[in-house]
């Protein structure tokens, strides 16, 4: 640590050269400044210098002490002390070498006080915890929604059925099966039971997404891993709200059947003939039950299912495309939030770089992040882009060339707390 002392004279010289004034003026100014501050303090005022700090007087009370030699009690007189509180700007500048350090909570022998709900109602930590869990639940909900929205926005071809929503799923499935049984009695129903059916979850605003085309495809019958492809295509016809629910149910049932038949049709040659007949049956039954659906609509929707079907029948995937005029408003807000989530969930690929930095002694990725992205939390993205060179983000060899990647500005939005949250989550993953 360099502990050179800079005297008043040196300060005067530096200020004079910096402000391009004569030393005499600088000296005069410094003296005036100091005496002004002193006088103001003596008057009991608080002196605040922008960008530097605050000076104020502090009265230290007289206190008792003991004379070390004689042992007799003496009273140290009270005195005034100049208290200097550095400005936050100065504080941060001075503390730059340790800027990247955070207080770390140590767990271990922490005994969580086990009190019942009513006993300590005003414990702020407890309230905070409750709020935190609430927020967590909300986040889970958002994530559940977003994972589906992601599929529809990205239209990814292959998505394994990973998301499990047991209750909803089961209920919906049962409903579908019931409907199927009601409308047409088909031998394929039994095959539905093993299949994973993933309908779009209803969101909080009581919006039932209008599903008018669900296309389940049975992929592999022989290996008994029956998978279902579910496709909800946009709905074009507007029906009366009364009839809508009924129609939806009919359509779901109809489509499920068609899907199964179609799956068999493509995959299972022996079932080809049977599927054709099922298709005809279903069509007839629906026509019988609801006369509101015109044949042209039917043909359009059916041809709609068939054309993409032939291309993607080998890949198990779910594409959920709700198109409901009433749902658009609420969904659009979800999409706005969830497109960000999709960004988070997607692996980031770094192809463009805005700068390269040579890692210096005492350097930090957080410093680069702060300089290029505006927040030190975003260092994780630099690390991700330089993973091949950096084995451990805590230990980086001096002289390593570090590329600063160009990151999607949405991802490093300093004012968005979710971005910072995400960066912190990544931080927790990388630093263990």
């Amino acid at each position, binding site marked *: 640590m360099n502990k050179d002392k800079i005297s*008043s004279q040196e300060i005067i010289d530096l200020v004079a050269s910096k402000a391009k004034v004569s030393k005499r003026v600088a000296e005069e*100014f410094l003296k005036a400044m100091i005496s002004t*501050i*002193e006088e103001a303090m003596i008057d009991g005022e608080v002196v605040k210098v922008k960008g*530097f700090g605050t000076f104020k007087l502090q009265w230290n009370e007289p206190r008792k002490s003991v004379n070390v030699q004689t042992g007799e009690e003496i009273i140290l007189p009270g005195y005034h002390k100049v208290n200097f509180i550095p400005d936050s700007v100065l504080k941060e500048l001075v503390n730059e070498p340790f800027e990247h350090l955070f207080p770390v909570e140590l767990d271990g022998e922490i005994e969580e006080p086990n009190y019942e709900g009513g006993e300590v109602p005003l414990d702020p*930590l407890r309230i905070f915890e409750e709020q935190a869990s609430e927020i967590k639940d909300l986040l889970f909900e958002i994530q559940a929604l977003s994972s589906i929205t992601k599929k529809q926005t990205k239209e990814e071809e292959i998505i394994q059925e990973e998301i499990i929503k047991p209750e909803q799923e089961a209920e919906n499935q049962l409903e579908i099966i019931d409907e199927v049984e009601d409308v047409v009695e088909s031998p394929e129903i039994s095959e539905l039971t093993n299949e994973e059916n993933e309908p779009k979850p209803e969101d909080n605003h009581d919006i039932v997404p209008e599903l008018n085309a669900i296309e389940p495809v049975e992929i592999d019958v022989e290996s008994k891993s029956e998978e279902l492809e579910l496709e909800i295509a946009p709905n074009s016809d507007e029906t009366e709200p009364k009839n809508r629910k009924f129609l939806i149910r009919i359509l779901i049932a109809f489509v499920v059947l068609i899907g199964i038949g179609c799956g068999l049709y493509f995959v299972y040659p022996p079932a080809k003939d049977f599927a054709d007949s099922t298709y005809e049956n279903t069509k007839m039954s629906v026509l019988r039950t609801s006369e509101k659906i015109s044949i042209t609509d039917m043909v359009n929707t059916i041809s709609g299912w068939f054309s993409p079907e032939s291309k993607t029948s080998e890949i198990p995937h779910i594409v959920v495309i709700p198109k409901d005029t009433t749902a658009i408003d609420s969904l659009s807000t979800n999409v706005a939030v969830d497109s960000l989530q999709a960004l988070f969930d997607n692996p980031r690929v770094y192809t463009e770089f805005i700068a390269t930095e040579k890692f210096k002694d005492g350097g930090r990725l957080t410093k680069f992040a702060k300089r290029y992205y505006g927040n030190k939390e975003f260092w994780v993205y630099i690390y991700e882009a330089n993973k091949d060179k950096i084995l451990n983000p805590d230990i980086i060899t001096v002289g390593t060339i570090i590329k600063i990647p160009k990151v999607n500005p949405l991802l490093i939005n300093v004012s968005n707390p979710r971005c910072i949250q995400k960066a912190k989550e990544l931080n927790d993953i990388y630093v263990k």
Partner: protein
Amino acid sequence: MNHKELISAISLKMNAPKSVVADLLEKTVATCTELLVEEKIIGFQSFGNFEVRKKEERLSVHPATQIRTLIPPKLVVNFKQSNILKDKLKDLITNE
């Protein structure tokens, strides 16, 4: 006394325009900040010393929750008044 009031008080004392004083003050602050970042001690005679001190890392225990937290080391600016200033302040009549 805030920044503006300080500037006007100094300009009154120096018989100099406020703009000049403001500029000088800004430059002084910048110089001092630079020096402090380099961890140098700045001594104003008759006023005191500004220096950077390192606060070592420590373990703090939250008194209510007993959560132990490791506080990282940090550098802080410390001001120590000179004896001249201290003597001046001694004459101050204590009203507390």
